[in-house]
Protein backbone atom coordinates (compact mmCIF):
# COMPACT_ATOMS: atom_id res chain seq x y z
CA UNK A 1 0.00 0.00 0.00
CA UNK A 2 1.50 3.31 -1.14
CA UNK A 3 -0.14 6.64 -0.25
CA UNK A 4 0.63 10.17 -1.46
CA UNK A 5 -0.28 12.98 0.96
CA UNK A 6 -0.72 16.37 -0.73
CA UNK A 7 -1.09 19.22 1.77
CA UNK A 8 0.62 22.61 2.03
CA UNK A 9 0.90 22.28 5.80
CA UNK A 10 3.99 20.42 6.90
CA UNK A 11 2.28 19.92 10.27
CA UNK A 12 -0.71 18.24 8.67
CA UNK A 13 1.48 16.01 6.49
CA UNK A 14 3.35 14.94 9.61
CA UNK A 15 0.10 14.23 11.49
CA UNK A 16 -1.27 12.14 8.62
CA UNK A 17 2.01 10.28 8.19
CA UNK A 18 2.08 9.37 11.90
CA UNK A 19 -1.55 8.35 11.77
CA UNK A 20 -0.96 6.14 8.70
CA UNK A 21 2.05 4.52 10.39
CA UNK A 22 -0.32 3.59 13.22
CA UNK A 23 -2.47 1.88 10.60
CA UNK A 24 0.58 -0.03 9.30
CA UNK A 25 0.94 2.11 6.19
CA UNK A 26 4.60 3.12 6.00
CA UNK A 27 5.09 3.75 2.29
CA UNK A 28 3.98 7.39 2.29
CA UNK A 29 5.05 10.12 -0.14
CA UNK A 30 4.48 13.85 0.46
CA UNK A 31 3.86 16.91 -1.69
CA UNK A 32 3.22 20.53 -0.68
CA UNK A 33 0.79 21.55 -3.44
CA UNK A 34 -1.25 20.14 -6.30
CA UNK A 35 1.39 20.75 -8.94
CA UNK A 36 4.12 18.92 -7.01
CA UNK A 37 1.55 16.29 -6.08
CA UNK A 38 0.69 15.60 -9.70
CA UNK A 39 4.35 15.28 -10.66
CA UNK A 40 5.06 13.04 -7.65
CA UNK A 41 2.10 10.87 -8.57
CA UNK A 42 3.16 10.47 -12.21
CA UNK A 43 6.78 9.72 -11.23
CA UNK A 44 5.98 7.14 -8.57
CA UNK A 45 3.19 4.99 -9.96
CA UNK A 46 1.77 2.67 -8.84
CA UNK A 47 0.32 4.70 -5.98
CA UNK A 48 -2.83 3.35 -4.39
CA UNK A 49 -4.29 6.40 -2.68
CA UNK A 50 -3.87 10.18 -2.94
CA UNK A 51 -4.99 12.23 0.07
CA UNK A 52 -5.65 15.71 -1.26
CA UNK A 53 -6.07 18.99 0.61
CA UNK A 54 -8.28 21.59 -1.10
CA UNK A 55 -6.83 25.04 -0.32
CA UNK A 56 -3.18 25.14 -1.35
CA UNK A 57 -0.95 27.66 -3.13
CA UNK A 58 0.30 27.11 -6.73
CA UNK A 59 -2.32 24.45 -7.56
CA UNK A 60 -5.30 23.73 -5.32
CA UNK A 61 -6.57 20.25 -4.61
CA UNK A 62 -9.70 20.55 -6.73
CA UNK A 63 -7.68 21.46 -9.83
CA UNK A 64 -5.31 18.61 -9.05
CA UNK A 65 -8.24 16.20 -8.71
CA UNK A 66 -9.53 17.20 -12.16
CA UNK A 67 -6.04 16.74 -13.64
CA UNK A 68 -5.76 13.27 -12.13
CA UNK A 69 -9.14 12.23 -13.50
CA UNK A 70 -8.26 13.62 -16.94
CA UNK A 71 -5.15 11.40 -17.10
CA UNK A 72 -5.95 7.86 -18.26
CA UNK A 73 -2.73 6.51 -16.77
CA UNK A 74 -3.92 7.52 -13.29
CA UNK A 75 -7.48 6.22 -13.57
CA UNK A 76 -7.08 3.50 -10.94
CA UNK A 77 -5.76 5.81 -8.23
CA UNK A 78 -8.13 6.30 -5.33
CA UNK A 79 -8.43 10.01 -4.50
CA UNK A 80 -9.63 11.04 -1.06
CA UNK A 81 -10.06 14.74 -0.36
CA UNK A 82 -8.75 15.61 3.11
CA UNK A 83 -9.64 19.22 3.78
CA UNK A 84 -11.16 21.72 6.16
CA UNK A 85 -13.66 22.67 3.39
CA UNK A 86 -16.76 21.32 5.07
CA UNK A 87 -19.71 22.64 3.08
CA UNK A 88 -21.99 20.08 1.49
CA UNK A 89 -21.66 21.83 -1.88
CA UNK A 90 -17.88 21.35 -1.87
CA UNK A 91 -18.23 17.68 -0.97
CA UNK A 92 -20.71 17.13 -3.82
CA UNK A 93 -18.50 19.08 -6.25
CA UNK A 94 -15.46 16.93 -5.42
CA UNK A 95 -17.37 13.65 -5.63
CA UNK A 96 -18.83 14.72 -9.00
CA UNK A 97 -15.31 15.35 -10.30
CA UNK A 98 -14.23 11.85 -9.34
CA UNK A 99 -13.06 11.95 -5.72
CA UNK A 100 -13.64 8.52 -4.18
CA UNK A 101 -14.19 9.83 -0.68
CA UNK A 102 -14.04 12.98 1.45
CA UNK A 103 -12.50 13.57 4.88
CA UNK A 104 -13.31 16.80 6.69
CA UNK A 105 -10.69 18.16 9.10
CA UNK A 106 -10.62 17.81 12.08
CA UNK A 107 -10.58 14.01 11.81
CA UNK A 108 -9.96 11.01 14.03
CA UNK A 109 -7.80 7.98 13.10
CA UNK A 110 -11.02 5.95 12.92
CA UNK A 111 -12.47 8.26 10.26
CA UNK A 112 -9.28 8.11 8.19
CA UNK A 113 -9.20 4.31 8.42
CA UNK A 114 -12.82 4.07 7.33
CA UNK A 115 -12.61 6.58 4.46
CA UNK A 116 -9.39 5.10 3.06
CA UNK A 117 -10.90 1.61 3.40
CA UNK A 118 -7.78 0.37 5.21
Amino acid at each position, binding site marked *: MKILVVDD*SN*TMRRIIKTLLAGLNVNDVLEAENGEVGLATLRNNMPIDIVMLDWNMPVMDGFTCLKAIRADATLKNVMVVMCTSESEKGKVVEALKEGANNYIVK*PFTPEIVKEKLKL
Partner: protein
Amino acid sequence: MDVAYVNPFISSTIETFKTMMKIDVQPGKPSLKVNGEPTHDVSGIIGLSGGAQGAISLSFPKIVALKSVSAMIGMEIKIIGPEITDGIGEIVNIIAGHAKQNLTGYNLTISLPNVVVGKNHSVITPTGTPCIVVPFTSMIGIFAMEVSLKTEK
Protein backbone atom coordinates in the same frame (compact mmCIF):
# COMPACT_ATOMS: atom_id res chain seq x y z
CA MET B 1 -26.01 43.86 15.43
CA ASP B 2 -26.35 40.17 14.56
CA VAL B 3 -23.34 38.31 15.92
CA ALA B 4 -24.79 34.80 15.70
CA TYR B 5 -22.14 34.10 13.06
CA VAL B 6 -19.60 33.82 15.87
CA ASN B 7 -21.20 30.65 17.26
CA PRO B 8 -20.05 28.26 14.48
CA PHE B 9 -16.46 29.47 15.02
CA ILE B 10 -16.76 28.81 18.77
CA SER B 11 -18.09 25.27 18.32
CA SER B 12 -15.52 24.60 15.58
CA THR B 13 -12.71 25.69 17.95
CA ILE B 14 -13.99 23.37 20.69
CA GLU B 15 -14.24 20.44 18.28
CA THR B 16 -10.86 21.05 16.62
CA PHE B 17 -8.99 21.12 19.95
CA LYS B 18 -10.86 18.05 21.18
CA THR B 19 -10.36 15.98 18.01
CA MET B 20 -6.86 17.00 16.91
CA MET B 21 -5.23 17.69 20.29
CA LYS B 22 -7.38 15.83 22.84
CA ILE B 23 -7.74 19.10 24.76
CA ASP B 24 -11.01 20.44 26.16
CA VAL B 25 -11.32 24.21 25.75
CA GLN B 26 -13.99 26.38 27.34
CA PRO B 27 -15.25 29.59 25.72
CA GLY B 28 -15.76 32.68 27.88
CA LYS B 29 -18.12 35.59 27.33
CA PRO B 30 -17.78 37.25 23.90
CA SER B 31 -17.13 41.00 23.89
CA LEU B 32 -16.66 43.75 21.35
CA LYS B 33 -12.98 44.47 20.76
CA VAL B 34 -11.63 47.98 21.00
CA ASN B 35 -9.11 48.47 18.17
CA GLY B 36 -5.52 48.68 19.35
CA GLU B 37 -6.11 46.32 22.24
CA PRO B 38 -3.15 43.94 22.34
CA THR B 39 -3.76 40.27 21.78
CA HIS B 40 -1.10 37.66 22.56
CA ASP B 41 2.25 36.54 21.10
CA VAL B 42 1.32 34.28 18.16
CA SER B 43 -1.72 34.89 15.95
CA GLY B 44 -3.05 32.78 13.09
CA ILE B 45 -5.25 34.82 10.74
CA ILE B 46 -7.54 33.76 7.89
CA GLY B 47 -9.40 36.11 5.60
CA LEU B 48 -13.06 35.50 4.83
CA SER B 49 -14.78 36.70 1.67
CA GLY B 50 -17.98 36.05 -0.28
CA GLY B 51 -21.39 36.97 1.11
CA ALA B 52 -19.60 38.63 4.05
CA GLN B 53 -16.07 39.98 4.41
CA GLY B 54 -13.68 39.86 7.31
CA ALA B 55 -11.26 37.63 9.14
CA ILE B 56 -10.93 35.16 11.95
CA SER B 57 -7.83 35.01 14.10
CA LEU B 58 -6.69 32.87 16.97
CA SER B 59 -4.15 34.46 19.26
CA PHE B 60 -2.00 32.52 21.73
CA PRO B 61 0.53 33.35 24.44
CA LYS B 62 3.86 31.81 23.37
CA ILE B 63 3.66 28.89 25.80
CA VAL B 64 0.12 28.00 24.73
CA ALA B 65 1.08 28.09 21.04
CA LEU B 66 3.96 25.71 21.81
CA LYS B 67 1.74 23.36 23.80
CA SER B 68 -1.08 23.42 21.22
CA VAL B 69 1.11 22.47 18.25
CA SER B 70 3.08 19.96 20.35
CA ALA B 71 -0.19 18.27 21.31
CA MET B 72 -1.35 18.24 17.70
CA ILE B 73 1.76 16.58 16.26
CA GLY B 74 2.49 14.41 19.30
CA MET B 75 6.00 15.76 19.79
CA GLU B 76 7.28 18.48 22.14
CA ILE B 77 8.39 21.67 20.42
CA LYS B 78 10.29 24.13 22.60
CA ILE B 79 10.91 27.16 20.40
CA ILE B 80 8.79 29.39 18.18
CA GLY B 81 9.85 28.54 14.62
CA PRO B 82 8.50 27.24 11.33
CA GLU B 83 6.82 24.24 12.98
CA ILE B 84 4.81 26.51 15.27
CA THR B 85 3.83 29.03 12.59
CA ASP B 86 2.79 26.23 10.23
CA GLY B 87 0.91 24.44 13.02
CA ILE B 88 -0.94 27.54 14.23
CA GLY B 89 -1.84 28.36 10.62
CA GLU B 90 -3.26 24.87 10.18
CA ILE B 91 -5.27 25.08 13.41
CA VAL B 92 -6.98 28.32 12.34
CA ASN B 93 -7.46 26.89 8.82
CA ILE B 94 -9.27 23.84 10.22
CA ILE B 95 -11.41 25.98 12.53
CA ALA B 96 -12.43 28.42 9.77
CA GLY B 97 -13.12 25.67 7.24
CA HIS B 98 -15.10 23.56 9.65
CA ALA B 99 -17.22 26.53 10.76
CA LYS B 100 -18.26 27.15 7.14
CA GLN B 101 -20.63 24.19 7.15
CA ASN B 102 -22.82 26.12 9.58
CA LEU B 103 -22.48 29.43 7.74
CA THR B 104 -23.80 28.36 4.35
CA GLY B 105 -25.98 31.49 4.06
CA TYR B 106 -22.84 33.60 3.68
CA ASN B 107 -21.22 31.48 0.93
CA LEU B 108 -17.80 32.16 2.46
CA THR B 109 -14.43 31.57 0.87
CA ILE B 110 -11.41 31.29 3.15
CA SER B 111 -7.91 32.52 2.36
CA LEU B 112 -4.66 30.71 3.07
CA PRO B 113 -3.58 31.37 6.68
CA ASN B 114 -1.06 33.98 7.79
CA VAL B 115 0.73 33.83 11.13
CA VAL B 116 2.07 36.83 13.06
CA VAL B 117 4.63 36.43 15.85
CA GLY B 118 5.51 39.23 18.28
CA LYS B 119 4.87 40.07 21.89
CA ASN B 120 1.58 41.90 22.51
CA HIS B 121 0.94 42.70 18.87
CA SER B 122 -2.56 43.76 17.87
CA VAL B 123 -4.73 42.57 14.98
CA ILE B 124 -6.56 45.64 13.64
CA THR B 125 -9.85 45.30 11.78
CA PRO B 126 -11.15 47.75 9.17
CA THR B 127 -13.16 50.72 10.47
CA GLY B 128 -16.84 49.92 10.61
CA THR B 129 -16.35 46.18 10.93
CA PRO B 130 -17.14 44.96 14.44
CA CYS B 131 -14.65 42.55 15.97
CA ILE B 132 -15.93 40.03 18.51
CA VAL B 133 -13.37 38.62 20.95
CA VAL B 134 -14.01 35.25 22.55
CA PRO B 135 -11.59 34.25 25.33
CA PHE B 136 -10.90 30.55 25.83
CA THR B 137 -9.51 28.69 28.82
CA SER B 138 -8.03 25.21 28.85
CA MET B 139 -5.66 22.95 30.76
CA ILE B 140 -2.76 24.26 28.62
CA GLY B 141 -3.62 27.93 29.20
CA ILE B 142 -5.64 30.77 27.71
CA PHE B 143 -6.04 32.00 24.15
CA ALA B 144 -8.44 34.26 22.27
CA MET B 145 -10.45 34.06 19.08
CA GLU B 146 -11.33 37.24 17.20
CA VAL B 147 -13.99 37.27 14.49
CA SER B 148 -14.60 40.36 12.40
CA LEU B 149 -17.21 39.99 9.72
CA LYS B 150 -18.99 42.68 7.75
CA THR B 151 -22.42 41.29 6.91
CA GLU B 152 -25.51 42.70 5.25
CA LYS B 153 -27.65 41.46 8.16
